[in-house]
């Protein structure tokens, strides 16, 4: 046991070098927050596009969603990292992580937003219009506020997938938590076991609160929904979460 992959001395060294893991954790956290903001902005814009009555906007949203849902994030990251420099676009790894992960998950968020908007009874838009609301006013004051409540749980699930997917940065020397852990375990100590356990725990700490909040919130909506009003029975948003499997590093190699 003293020589095994989980030997005590490996853990000792890990805790000595723990600041390195924290550095990576900081990057992961920061990229996650920025990518999440980007994904939300893109998701709302393209979610609105895809429910618009203008054909061209729907088409634009469709193209965006199909491209980013049907190509692996790893491919997108490698493309930006290795191919774009040839056309003069050399982004640093932090920006690549933020942009790629944000744009990729924006496509999924837009689907959540689209489903949310569609689930609000069509009659409400017509009722609003008959009261003199413009399309945008109706969206802003009537449809979106109701949508927000029901899409929050699936959005939280998206956020969790997004956080986990920031680990693709490790493939392009991103300096994130996964990269730090890999690098630490590789260099000399070969302590993959302890390194990945600690890394898993750190991702868990980030993700678990979001997931459990989403679960509680979902229950709350369901219970409230037995009455009348928005969020009633039948307003179940197809959760897009879970369709974006966490990208396994090995799969890309």
């Amino acid at each position, binding site marked *: 046991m003293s020589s095994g*992959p989980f030997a005590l001395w490996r853990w000792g060294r890990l805790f000595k070098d723990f600041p390195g893991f924290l550095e990576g954790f900081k990057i992961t956290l920061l990229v996650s927050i920025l990518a999440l903001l980007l994904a939300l902005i893109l998701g709302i814009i393209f979610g609105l596009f895809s429910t618009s009555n203008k054909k061209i906007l729907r088409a634009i949203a469709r193209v965006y969603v199909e491209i980013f849902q049907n190509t692996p994030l790893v491919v997108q990251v490698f493309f930006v*990292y290795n191919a774009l*420099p040839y056309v003069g676009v*050399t982004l640093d790894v932090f920006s690549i992580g933020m942009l790629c992960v944000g744009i990729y998950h924006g496509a999924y968020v837009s689907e959540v937003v689209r489903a949310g908007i569609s689930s609000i009874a069509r009659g409400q838009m017509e009722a609003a219009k008959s009261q003199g609301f413009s399309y945008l006013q109706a969206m802003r004051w009537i449809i979106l506020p109701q949508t927000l409540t029901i899409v929050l749980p699936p959005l939280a699930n998206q956020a969790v997938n997004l956080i986990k997917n920031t680990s693709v940065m490790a493939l392009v*020397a991103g300096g994130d938590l996964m990269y730090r852990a890999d*690098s630490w375990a*590789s260099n*000399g100590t070969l302590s*993959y076991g302890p390194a990945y356990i600690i890394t898993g725990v750190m991702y868990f700490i980030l993700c678990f609160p979001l997931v459990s909040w989403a679960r509680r919130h979902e229950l709350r909506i369901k219970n409230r929904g037995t009455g009348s009003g928005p969020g009633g029975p039948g307003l179940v948003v197809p959760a897009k979460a879970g369709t974006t499997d966490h990208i396994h590093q090995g799969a890309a190699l």
Partner: protein
Amino acid sequence: MKFAKKVVCVALILAAVAGTVFAGGKQESGGSGDVDRIKGHGVLRVGVKSDVPGFGLQNPATGLYEGLEIELAKLIAQEIFGDPSKVAFTPVTAKTRGPLLDNGDIDLVIATFTVTEERKLTYNFSTTYYTDAVGMLVKKAAGISGLKDLGGKTIGVAQSATSRVAIKEAGDKIGVSFGFAEFATYPEIKAALDSGRVDVFSVDKSILAGYLDNETVILPEAFSPQEYGIASKKSNTELTSYIDGLIKKWLSDGTIAGLVSQFKL
């Protein structure tokens, strides 16, 4: 009486079974358990490089493995089975070779695996069969002539490779510091060098040779000897001493020297 007969019968059967098991157990501990186990598999499973010319290269035309380390694996199979073809090759990278050995997918790693004190804590290594050094591949256009020009530059290295430590120590000695970017595979480092993500591709010289092209050059400097050994799982001590004996024999009788010149290493 009948009952007594039955009891005797059962007792005899038990004794026979116990005897077989005991004899089996005794045989197991009789000296070459690891090698017997490999014989039981019917094939020697070896982790090799598939992209290092001269050491372990999977020929794209034939699909066959070629190189010094491939020949060593065949020689070992010849010793164990009397048949050099009883080898199953698994392509490994610097990062995957350790875990593959740990989980028992392969019996041996012969894959430009540098012996270090730290790695000896995790794996068993045979005597060194080849000594290499860490080198640097740079773009001709970059105007880099040596380590002294690398201040503030980024060096691409493979995860789990010893090159990072070796080159950092060399840099510290002459007071030059640089950044590192680690990648899972060599082609990824080459891609990063081509696209200008890293300024230097640093790994063992033998491996670098496989990535040399018209736009790049290998610098004459080399650092910290890299001694390649055959690795086996820490618990397989018998296998290690068996392999070690073979390598020592082949070093003294000129077999390995012959292979080194055959592959122009």
